[in-house]
């Protein structure tokens, strides 16, 4: 039963995430964090981090991760199958039409309207992640509760990415190491 739910959930993710990569992120967040509460926002952010550092698409990684957590290997298989099935049907259908007619005007037209919305939804998911990292949750936003170290790290990372065009994986690793280093500092000075 739970496997069926996982399958159905990730079927929706697979069906509605246009644009690849980050585009699936808001949908996974909606299904896995908001609707079903299978992962906390913090766990979801960890999952995106792990996805960045391992090969494989975010959607497949999430399906496997959530599936295993909720219902073991059968859950992972159900979720992953659900995630791939829509693409399977739709890609083969378009490929068939393309091999026959060799034109894709309508498709390109529809995508042109979808792309701006995808950017907006990725932005929205990114904001949730930042809020989770810095304050814990939306309800806890206040000046006193702000994790200033993470705010500074976030800004430094932006500069490294935009000004110095540094590799995103390297930037993330540096941010992690920097945070751990800062956390260890008082311990070193005390002992």
């Amino acid at each position, binding site marked *: 039963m739970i496997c069926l739910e996982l399958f159905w959930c990730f079927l929706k993710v697979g069906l509605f*995430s246009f644009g690849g990569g*980050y585009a699936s992120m808001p949908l996974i967040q909606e299904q896995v964090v908001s609707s079903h509460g299978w992962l906390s926002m913090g766990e979801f952010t960890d999952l995106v981090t792990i996805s960045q550092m391992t*090969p494989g698409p975010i959607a497949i990684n999430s399906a496997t991760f959530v599936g*295993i957590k909720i219902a073991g290997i059968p859950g992972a298989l159900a979720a992953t199958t659900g995630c791939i099935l829509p693409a399977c049907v739709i890609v083969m259908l378009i490929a068939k039409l393309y091999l026959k007619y060799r034109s894709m005007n309508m498709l390109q037209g*529809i995508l042109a309207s979808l*792309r701006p919305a995808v950017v*907006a939804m990725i932005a929205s998911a990114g904001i949730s992640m930042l809020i989770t990292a810095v304050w814990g949750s939306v309800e806890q936003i206040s000046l006193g509760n702000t994790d200033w170290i993470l705010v500074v790290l976030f800004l430094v990372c932006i500069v490294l990415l935009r000004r110095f065009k540094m590799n995103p994986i390297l930037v993330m690793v540096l941010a*992690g190491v920097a945070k751990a280093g800062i956390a260890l500092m008082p311990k070193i000075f005390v002992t």
Partner: protein
Amino acid sequence: MKNKKKVLFKLFVSTLYLSAFTFGGGYVIVTLMKKKFVDEYYWIEEDEMLDLVAIAQSAPGAIAVNGAIVVGYKLAGFAGALVSIVGTVIPPFLIISLISLFYNAFRENFLIAQILEGMQAGVAAVIAAVVYEMGEGIVQSRNTGSVIIMAGAFLAACVFGVNVVYIVIACLLIGVIRTLIGERRRKA
């Protein structure tokens, strides 16, 4: 028959290999597929590969998986698509299964928890940079419709908490209508 088996086997090994060693998302893997299937095996013409990539990008789902499906289907029909899907999915499935086994133990370690927390800020920055680049392209296109869609979708998702599935469906419909109007104008 033997020839088809050989193609399927080669397809499986190539997709498995590409999926296991490609960091950096769908666009990278699609480029590598082109190198392998167009430049190395001569299985697909360059122009056709470009169209196949366009198909992979326009269908919903992960681009790496879609690319594998479309290339597999082109080369060996339904069986080809199946073989490439399995080849593409096995590596991330195994890797994430392994990681999820250790995740909880990992998370409780003080040092790793700190590293992951710092990386959360890093990921948020990476996403911010991606959004900036993509959004810049849309604003610079000077297409009023696109900018309105972007602003509207952002308000709906971030401020009003509308389910993103509905936002996608709404934009699909808007896209159909815009395309139909555009085509009628071109004809008139």
